[in-house]
């Protein structure tokens, strides 16, 4: 069992807002002091550029920067640190893949496959790539319980170059059986490239990229207790070497002549310009924090809160509440998306906000999924390591107020 009181003490935002009920971690998690302090340490003690300086301060910042690469690599059990590319966020990692990989390997009559439960960042780049290159864009549906319709034999063919899918839905909370999916699609087409959007999974699940069998995996630091402005792209060195650079500029070149340029090896080939040094350095503290708590404990804690929340929502509001996503809590994380009565999600979120409760209202950057669910928008309440049963009760009380105010 997590000691929430103790965990909360380590998040300075609760000292500034003692009554805060923060239920919007899938948008961005709060940050522990350990992470904030590390970023301050960089700026105050060795805040200079990486790779370039011969002087000790630059050596220190380079060592700290590269140490995060090693820690990220170990965290997801990559083969080696060179498989870790730092980007701005998961969105940039995915866009990098469409430019440096997709545009290079996609030929007419190929297919790109994704799912209806994707965040726009793993949907739109591939949709645009498909329409520009004229290849077929297939979208895998979900069933009414919020699970992917796993009829891979129907959707994956020898022409499917890329399958890109999310590990966890940011609306339904569904944890997709990614390992089995990869096994199955690679059986149908051994040459298929599988990209996993782990932005929602990385804060809750132990990920082992070698065991998973994916070709690429992406996530953002800011959803896993780390600083904003840092994303990760994991890929195998062999494919990285074959890919074109994403952006051109400083740090990514080997030699430049008037007629031609040669590029560094991965990962530096994909890291043009000065990176988010302080943020990358502080990301390792987020990983240390998560490992100390233990990812298994996190998921278990979320399951307890989600279960309590489902129970209270159903008891209190009966048929007026509609919760989207799997009913089997072992197959989802602590995301609870719902609609209440005919109330507009923005009105619900506004009244909750007046009570100090932060939830998300809208389509959560997943419009195709909301069209599939036949709703314009939903309210999303999510639980993470700093939430406890009191937060669930405050949410329910807030929703009671909503029904009172809006009638």
């Amino acid at each position, binding site marked *: 069992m997590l000691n929430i009181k103790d965990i909360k003490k380590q998040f300075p935002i609760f000292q500034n807002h003692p009554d805060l009920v923060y239920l919007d971690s899938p948008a961005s998690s709060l940050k522990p002091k350990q992470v904030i302090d590390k970023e301050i340490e960089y700026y105050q003690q060795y805040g200079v550029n990486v790779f370039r300086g011969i002087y000790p301060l630059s050596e220190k910042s380079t060592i700290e920067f590269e140490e995060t690469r090693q820690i990220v690599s170990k965290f997801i059990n990559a083969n080696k640190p060179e498989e870790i590319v730092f980007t701005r966020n998961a969105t940039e990692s995915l866009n990098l893949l469409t430019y440096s990989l997709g545009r290079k390997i996609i030929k007419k009559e190929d297919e790109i496959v994704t799912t209806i439960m994707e965040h726009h960042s793993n949907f739109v780049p591939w949709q645009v790539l498909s329409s520009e290159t004229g290849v077929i864009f297939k979208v895998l549906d979900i069933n009414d319980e919020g699970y992917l319709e796993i009829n891979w034999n129907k959707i994956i063919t020898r022409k499917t170059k890329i399958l890109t899918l999310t590990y966890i839905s940011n609306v339904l909370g569904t944890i997709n059986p990614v390992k089995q999916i990869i096994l199955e699609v690679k059986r149908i087409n051994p040459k298929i490239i599988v990209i996993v959007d782990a932005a929602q999974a990385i804060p809750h699940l132990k990920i082992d990229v070698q065991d998973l069998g994916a070709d690429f995996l992406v996530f953002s630091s800011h959803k896993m207790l780390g600083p904003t402005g840092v994303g990760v792209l994991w890929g195998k060195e062999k494919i990285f070497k074959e890919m074109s650079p994403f952006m051109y500029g400083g740090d990514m070149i080997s030699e430049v002549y008037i007629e031609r340029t040669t590029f560094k090896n991965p990962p530096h080939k994909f890291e043009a310009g000065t990176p988010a040094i302080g943020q990358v350095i502080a990301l390792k503290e987020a990983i240390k924090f998560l490992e100390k708590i233990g990812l298994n404990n996190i998921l278990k804690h979320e399951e307890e809160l989600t279960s309590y929340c489902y129970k209270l929502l159903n008891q209190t509001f009966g048929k007026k509440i509609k919760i989207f996503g799997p009913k089997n809590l072992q197959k989802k994380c602590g995301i609870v998306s719902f609609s209440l009565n005919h109330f*507009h999600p*923005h*009105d619900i979120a506004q009244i909750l906000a*007046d009570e100090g409760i932060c939830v998300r*209202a809208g*389509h959560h950057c997943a419009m195709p999924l909301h069209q599939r669910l036949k709703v*314009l928008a939903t309210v999303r309440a999510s639980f993470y390591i700093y939430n406890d049963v009191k937060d669930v009760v405050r949410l329910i009380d807030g929703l009671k107020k909503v029904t009172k*105010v*809006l009638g």
Partner: protein
Amino acid sequence: MNIYKETIIDHYQNPRNFGKLKQFQHSVKLNNPFCGDEITLYINIQEKKIKEISFQAKGCAISIASASLLTENVKGKTKEQLRKLNRDFIIKMLGIDLGINRLKCALLPLDALKQILKNYEF
């Protein structure tokens, strides 16, 4: 900040001038894809003034109340008078303090009316 005061809730639950006019010369449909709000305005012009106005809408309490109050406020007004209506008028009409995100909801009905002024001569 409680924006759900009595008049707002009253206009949200019992919107005035709701539905489609039997007789109208102009109508316009607008939506706000960000939150899914949607409004259709119908107007009946007689002697260069709004004789009747109505709306159909899906949306949050603020956008519905704003549409309801706006339709009550513009009857009998000429094009010149309607042109003068702006953001401040809507804020004053609602009498609540809206944040930047919710202001868009409140302004949707006025945007629809402005669209009619732009598209049609009367």
